Every structure is written in structure tokens, then in C-alpha cells.
């Protein structure tokens, strides 16, 4: 036990010390931070108050109604939200082009000039029939500003049209109001308060985390074993440790590194998405717009299920990667020999996509009992639909069984393989190793 512990610690400390690990671990949170903070920050910066002149060429009250609507636009939500536009109405019935040109000439529509305007909104009587409204400004590139103007002006035009037809716009608005499907997940006969979308996101995220961990760290295990073979340190190790101790120590040590890195990443992602508003405020920007990144809350039970299957899945595939590493003498050989293992990882990940629409269908039920796929499928099913305790326990047990078989097989391949130099082993030879070891 002491020996395995020594191997685990060596793997863990040596991996964590590498520049690659430190960089990836720091860059992950930076990436999440950028993803969570920057869009919100830029959005709130960009959309400082804009000075808009409504050049009113109408003969009706349409121009003043449009002005009122624009004045009502707010940045962000809540009572404290600031107005988005500073609106000035310029009456210009019949001479809107002349007014427009002179305003452009005088103010230059520059955001540096005060007093002045950032943009001109041209409305005329024909706007109501054609639906065409012109806007000139220095901020036409701002998707957000343009969307806001459009959203504010559209109902005014629609209402004016309806009034002309003698219809009460209020009635129409009420009758065409869209419907809102509000989803809520029920698990074990109880409402969970999670929305459907959040659940889907979580199911994907869990599959993705396992997938990435396997691809990165599974291959690292394989590479490390090939390196131990080529540097021949394996002879010293083999005279002190059993192959099983060597393999298990490596798999657990690297697995712990994977958990640490993923823990840091998800921790950072959680912090950024939870305290996004506070961070934005601290940076002097108001929070606004839809959340670009928001994490659904993860129930403790789901977290436990995910952790169990993450661990089992990691053991399963890491043992296979270790066996592949032991079979090969160069990293190029290993790159080819790992294909079957990689296909299984990919199959597991994509089975999440395939089964997410019908998490309780026959396919999903059956695949939950296939050890290489279960680590992907079961947490997804558990998060989307409720899974009975019986099926949960039985899938865990079959996966454990699968892991034991694979670790046993891999251990035998490893035992013979690590001390075999020369050419890459054929599958026939590997089969003989399994029987002979």
C-alpha cells in the first residue's frame, strides 16, 4: 500500500508541476472569465447613453409617439435602470431632408462633440404605410442599439396602423400574445425547480467533461508508459513494484490530476457565472443583456452519481490506455494502437447526443448496462429523467464489474508488455500474454 501511494504521489506531483498543467489550469478559468465577463462588460460599455434626434416629418402625432417610446427605453432591468437614449424631437414637417442635412453638417454626428447628436431618426407620414424608418448615426454598428430602436418603434407603427383601421391596438396586442411553455423537471415525483434547458446543458456538460478528461489524460497515461519503456526505467520499477502496483498507481495518480484540473475549471466557471454581476459592477459596468454563460445548479445526488461514473469511466479507459502503452515501444505505434480505445470513448460521448431525446427508451436502458458507455449514459439519464434506485445501483454494479474485468486484462497485458522491447505486439501475441501471464 505504501508503495502504491509512493507511485500515486510521484505521478500526481510530477504532473502538477509541469508547465503544461499550470498553463492549462490557469488559462481555463481565464477563458471562462473572458466568456462570462467580457461580453457583458463590452455590452454595457458600448451602450452608454446615446443622443438621438427624432427628425419629425410627420403631420400626425406619430413623431411624438415615437419620441416617447424611445425615451422609455432602459438599459438593463429593474427600476434603477438608466435611460438608454437622450431623445430630442425636432419638428420638421415637409422639410425633413433639409433639417437632416443641416443637423449632420452642424453636429457632424460625432460622439466627441457636445452638445450634439449620435444619431438621427427620420420619421415621416409614409413610414406608417411603408414601415420604413431611416436612422443615421455613428452607432449603426451597434447591434444592440439598432435592435433597441427597432423594438421601440415597431409597436408604435403597428399601433398607428391598427388605429387607422379602427381597431383597438391594446386588444390586438393581447390577442396575438405568444405563448410561453414553462418547463420544470419532475424527479422521483417531486418538482425540482430546474428548467428543461438547464438540465440539457448539464447532461451535455457532464459527458463533455468525461470525454475531455479521457482524451487528455488517457493519452498522457499511455505516453508516460511508453516513455518508461523507452527510458528503461521500467526495469528498476519492475524489480521493486508489481506491475499491478505500477499500473494502478499511475492510473489513480493521473486520475487525481484530472479531477484537480476539472475541479479548478468548474469551480472557476461557477464563481464567474454566480458572481458575474458583482464582478461587472466592480469593473464599473452595469449588468445587462441575456447571460452569455450560466450554469445550472447541480443537485448533490447528481454530483455524487457523476463522480462515481467519472471515476469508473476513468478507471476503465485509463486501464485500457495503460495496456495500449505497454504494448507499444514508440509513441507513434501507440498513436495507432489506441484507435479502438478512442473509438469507444467517442462512441460513449456521442451516445449522449443520441439518447438525450429519449433518455428512458430501450436503447438508453440497454446501453446503461454496457460498461464503456455507462459512464456517459447513466449520469445523463439521471440528470434528465428520474432513474429508479434499482437501475442506478445495477448500472453501477455492472460498470464496476466491467472495470474489474478490464483492469484485470490490462494488468496482464501490462505485466508482459512493459518488459517487451522490439516490435509492436500483434493482437495474437497480446492474447497469448493474457493467457500466459
Amino acid at each position: 500500500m505504501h508503495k502504491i501511494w509512493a507511485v500515486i504521489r510521484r505521478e500526481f506531483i510530477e504532473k502538477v508541476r509541469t508547465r503544461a498543467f499550470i498553463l492549462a489550469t490557469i488559462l481555463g478559468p481565464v477563458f471562462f472569465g473572458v466568456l462570462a465577463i467580457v461580453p457583458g462588460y463590452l455590452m454595457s460599455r458600448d451602450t452608454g447613453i446615446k443622443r438621438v434626434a427624432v427628425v419629425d416629418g410627420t403631420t400626425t402625432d406619430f413623431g411624438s409617439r415615437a419620441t416617447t417610446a424611445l425615451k422609455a427605453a432602459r438599459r438593463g432591468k429593474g427600476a434603477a435602470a438608466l435611460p438608454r437614449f437622450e431623445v430630442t424631437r425636432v419638428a420638421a414637417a415637409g422639410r425633413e431632408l433639409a433639417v437632416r442635412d443641416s443637423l449632420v453638417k452642424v453636429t457632424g454626428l460625432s460622439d466627441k462633440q457636445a452638445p450634439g447628436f449620435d444619431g438621427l431618426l427620420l420619421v415621416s407620414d409614409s413610414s406608417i404605410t411603408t414601415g420604413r424608418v431611416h436612422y443615421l448615426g455613428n452607432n449603426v454598428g451597434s447591434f444592440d442599439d439598432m435592435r433597441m430602436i427597432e423594438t421601440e418603434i415597431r409597436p408604435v407603427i403597428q399601433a398607428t396602423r391598427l388605429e387607422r383601421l379602427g381597431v383597438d391596438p391594446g386588444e390586438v396586442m393581447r390577442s396575438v400574445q405568444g405563448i410561453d411553455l414553462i418547463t420544470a423537471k419532475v424527479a422521483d415525483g417531486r418538482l425540482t425547480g430546474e428548467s428543461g434547458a438547464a438540465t440539457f446543458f448539464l447532461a451535455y456538460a457532464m459527458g463533455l467533461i468525461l470525454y475531455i478528461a479521457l482524451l487528455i489524460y488517457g493519452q498522457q497515461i499511455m505516453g508516460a508508459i511508453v516513455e518508461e519503456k523507452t527510458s528503461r526505467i521500467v526495469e528498476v520499477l519492475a524489480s521493486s513494484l508489481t506491475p499491478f502496483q505500477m499500473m494502478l498507481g499511475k492510473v489513480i495518480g493521473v486520475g487525481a490530476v484530472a479531477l484537480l484540473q476539472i475541479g479548478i475549471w468548474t469551480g472557476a466557471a461557477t464563481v464567474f457565472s454566480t458572481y458575474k454581476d458583482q464582478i461587472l459592477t466592480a469593473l464599473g459596468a452595469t449588468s445587462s443583456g441575456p447571460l452569455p454563460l450560466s450554469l445550472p445548479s447541480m443537485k448533490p445526488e447528481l454530483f455524487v452519481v457523476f463522480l462515481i461514473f467519472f471515476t469508473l469511466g476513468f478507471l476503465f479507459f485509463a486501464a485500457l490506455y495503460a495496456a495500449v502503452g505497454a504494448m507499444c515501444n514508440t509513441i507513434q505505434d501507440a498513436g495507432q494502437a489506441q484507435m479502438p480505445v478512442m473509438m469507444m470513448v467517442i462512441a460513449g460521448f456521442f451516445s449522449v447526443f443520441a439518447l438525450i431525446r429519449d433518455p428512458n427508451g430501450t436503447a438508453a436502458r440497454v446501453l446503461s448496462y454496457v460498461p464503456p458507455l455507462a459512464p456517459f449514459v447513466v449520469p445523463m439519464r439521471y440528470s434528465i429523467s428520474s432513474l429508479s434506485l434499482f437501475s442506478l445501483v445495477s448500472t453501477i454494479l455492472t460498470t464496476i464489474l466491467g472495470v474489474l474485468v478490464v483492469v484485470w486484462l490490462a494488468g496482464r497485458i501490462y505485466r508482459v508488455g512493459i518488459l517487451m522491447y522490439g516490435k509492436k505486439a500483434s493482437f495474437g501475441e497480446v492474447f497469448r500474454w493474457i493467457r500466459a501471464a
Partner: protein
Amino acid sequence: MNGSVVKVDSVTKRFAGHTAVEGLSLDVPKGGIFGLLGPNGAGKSTTIRMIMNIITPDEGRISVFDSVAASRDLSERIGFLPEERGLYKKMRVLDHLVFLGEAKGISRASAKTRAVNWLERLGLMDWAQKKVEDLSKGMQQKVQFISALLHDPELLILDEPFSGLDPVNSQVMKDVVVEAARDGRTVLFSTHIMEQAEKMCDHIVIIARGKKLVDGPLAQIKRDFGGRHIALTFTRNSDRATRILSDRTLVASSDDYGASAEVQLAAGADPDRLLKTLVQEDVGLARFEVVEPSLQAIFIAKVGADAASAPANEVHRA
């Protein structure tokens, strides 16, 4: 001494296409230095690997400390330096030694103390926090040497411990090995450098092509080999000297190095006659000494000069 530490009993190991070791029996007595000699490809490393249980013999049995258990179960009592040196290149020297000590079963704290002591003794303390890859090859070999001794084993198995070392480092390592033996430990080492083995070993086994040719205490081997041997050094006219040495009425066999030679006198030949002839031929004699046969001479005589260089296809399996 008493009892044997390593017992190899009629062991045979075949690799695809050839037999590396054939019916080999060894008995390494407790204490002292045991030399396993042989030309390249003789099966020395294969034998040591089998003793270390890195590979298993096809036939026969091996016991270490009177136990047939895998040597790693006894790994606390054995220190091993493999022929192919290998260390984790990215690890720091001290960390690496501590890890290998722990893998042998000693505690982390005592592994550290011992590693520091050894590094100081071999003058590597300044390198303790450096990565292994930053060390020269000789220094790496010293580090690996320390790792074999770190857990204070009763039995040291060293496969070609001095190969690739400069004379200074070779001397340092030799001192360590001799000291270990003096402290009552058993040292089993393989080499193909006869001079070294001759100076260090108490007991010698010579193998060639997987078979044992000579086995016994060094003094006994020399006595048994018998014959009168003469060491010669000449300074000129070496062609004439060569001609004299090929006279089979005088010389039974000779190992001619050009400027020096070791010869075995033919039966009934008189050393005086050889001396007289050499002086007559004016070879500028600088040394003429009746000696015990050197291990080199015994080795050549037993293995045969041609076998000293093994067929190329066997060398990589050594």
C-alpha cells in the same frame, strides 16, 4: 562463508531463434564479490534479469535468499542496477532517489536522509534539486548507482556497473562496491572487463554462449588453469619478438599486444631459453616476469579468441 544467497539451478532461457542461457547453474555464496564474466551476448544480462524476475526462465529454478518468491517481494533486501540505465528525465534528482527508495519499501523520511548522505558522498549535492536530464551521463549513472544502494540491501546485483564511466568515477564506484562487500554484503556483478574483475572478485563464473565455462574462487581458478606464464614487455623489433612467440616448442599460447604479451610456456620449455632468445634478437626487453595466469589469459583460453566477439545477431539480446 556459509549458505548461498542466489541459487540458479539448470536454467534455460530461449528467445525467438536462439538460446540465450542453457542449463546454467550458479551458486552465489554469502558475502564477497561474485563476478559474472563473459563476452558480449554471453547471456549475462539475461541471467541477471531472470534472477531479478524481470523475465522468467523456460526451464530450471532460481531462488534468492532461499526463497523462490518473486525478487520484488524481497526487493527491500536487493539493490539492482540494470544494464540499461533509466531514470525519469524530468524529475529532480533528490525526489527521484526518494521515490525509488520508497518503491523499495523504506520510509520517505529515511529515504531522504540516506539520499542526501549519498549525494554528498559522491559529490552530487549541488545537483540535488536539478532535473535528471540536466545531469551528465556519468552523473546520471551515479544517481542510479545510489538508487541501488539507498535501501541498504544485503545483496547488490549490478549489471555492467562500470561501463561508460571515466576512470575517476569508475574508481569512486569501485570503492563503494568494495566497501559494501567489506561490510558483509554480497555483490554480484557482471562485466566483460577482465582486469577489473580480476582485481575485485573473490569468486568468478565465466559464461559464453549461454553456457558456463569456469566457476570457482579466483585463486582456485588460477591454480587449476596451471601452466607457467610469463609477462613480457619489449621496446623494439616487435616483429622478431612475434616470431619467437610463435615458436610452439617454446610457447604454448600467447596473448600478444604488440609491445607487450602474456605467454604460456610450452610443456618442458625453459623460461631461461625464452629469455636468452629474446635478448639475442634484441627486442629491447623491459619486463620479463614469471606470473600467475591473468584472468584475461584464462578467459581467452576458455572462451576462444573468436568467441570473444560474439555473432552480431546475438549482441542485442545480451
